[in-house]
């Protein structure tokens, strides 16, 4: 009799564990899962789920966003694209140097921000957490992602000062592209109207 009760208790515990574990796993919340780098919209390696922030989000998206994107706006106000891989498909990491570049984007304002694997700004005091439309201006732009401030050795100040996003203390990280007040076409046909930034790996320290 005791053995029978123990079998039922063990089945209950195992069942609950499996149920909770599979829910967290399918929502991408188990350790090692990428944060918000998911979704059915893929534009040149940047991923988004336009249901973020809305009641239309499926329960897995809702749980994932609650953990990694709490208080995100619905798509009519802002869309969020995330990528955790460089242009060659390798994970973004602090020990590498990257070149990120692009142009104007179809929104009232945009920014690219670096977050660590806990979806937080990395713990440093470099004051180089993001780049944005105001800094980039209307034309082409380029910036460096690396853990140390880029050295500028030139006899005169260059006409265009490249930007810098610090990856110091970021470990393995991702980038979030925010498009505020996006053009309607971004929502209807993002692949055609959005030319998101490229992220090229320059070199790595081993």
């Amino acid at each position, binding site marked *: 009799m005791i053995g*029978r009760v123990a*079998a*039922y208790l*063990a*089945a*209950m515990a*195992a*069942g*609950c*564990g*499996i*149920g*909770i574990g*599979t*829910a*967290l796993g399918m*929502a991408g919340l188990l350790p090692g899962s990428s944060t*918000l780098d998911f979704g059915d919209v893929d534009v040149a390696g940047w991923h988004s789920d336009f249901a973020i*922030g*809305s*009641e239309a989000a499926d*329960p*897995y998206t*809702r*749980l994932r*966003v*609650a*953990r*990694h*994107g*709490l*208080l*995100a*706006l*619905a798509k*009519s*106000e802002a869309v969020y694209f995330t990528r955790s891989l460089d242009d060659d498909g390798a994970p973004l990491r602090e020990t590498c140097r990257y070149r990120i570049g692009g142009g104007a984007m179809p929104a*009232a*304002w945009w*920014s690219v*921000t670096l*977050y660590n694997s*806990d*979806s*937080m*700004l*990395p*713990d*440093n*005091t470099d*004051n180089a*957490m*993001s780049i*944005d439309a*105001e*800094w980039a201006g209307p034309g082409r732009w380029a910036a460096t992602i690396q853990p140390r401030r880029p050295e500028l050795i030139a006899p005169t100040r260059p006409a265009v000062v490249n930007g810098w996003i610090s990856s110091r203390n970021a470990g393995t990280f991702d980038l*979030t592209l*925010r498009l*505020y*007040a996006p053009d309607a076409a971004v929502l209807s046909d993002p692949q055609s109207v959005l030319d998101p930034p490229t992220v090229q790996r320059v070199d790595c320290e081993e």
Partner: protein
Amino acid sequence: MRRWFGPLAVLLVCAAGGHSLTLWLGPAVIMDRAMEALAQRGVALHAFTTPQRITPQTQSVVRSSPDLFYALCRYDLHDPGMTLAVRIAAWPDYQSLSFFDARTDNFATIRAVSKTAAVRLLPPGSAPEEGAIVSPTAKGVILIRRLAPSGEQFDAAVAASADDRCQIAP
């Protein structure tokens, strides 16, 4: 063999139940904890709290943008007679007033570039009214975002926030 049918059935039922409950309750639990954390960090109930500029040292919500001014107001409209008067002051650049319920849904957003906007928030189940939004849940968070990428712009956004309002209406 048949002696294992019962425990196996219990395992499957518990797995399905645990899976569904995690998905159903997870967002609300995370939101509840976030609201508790915000309260502990001084975010007021029924008032906008003037924020610190977002840095790695001051961040309290995942994926906060360092380029934005955020002002938060927690609300609790459990009393059916309560309404909340909300106003966003004018700001020359992008700004929005967004409403999030206890299940993390962004159920309303008002964009108010270069102008003020005001709205009343009503408890769940209220009849729709002109100039009012009905909250799907009694508790939630209201968030003002203002574009303020520099320290000077952030200071100006703080000054503008003196005219923001989030208070129980008579």
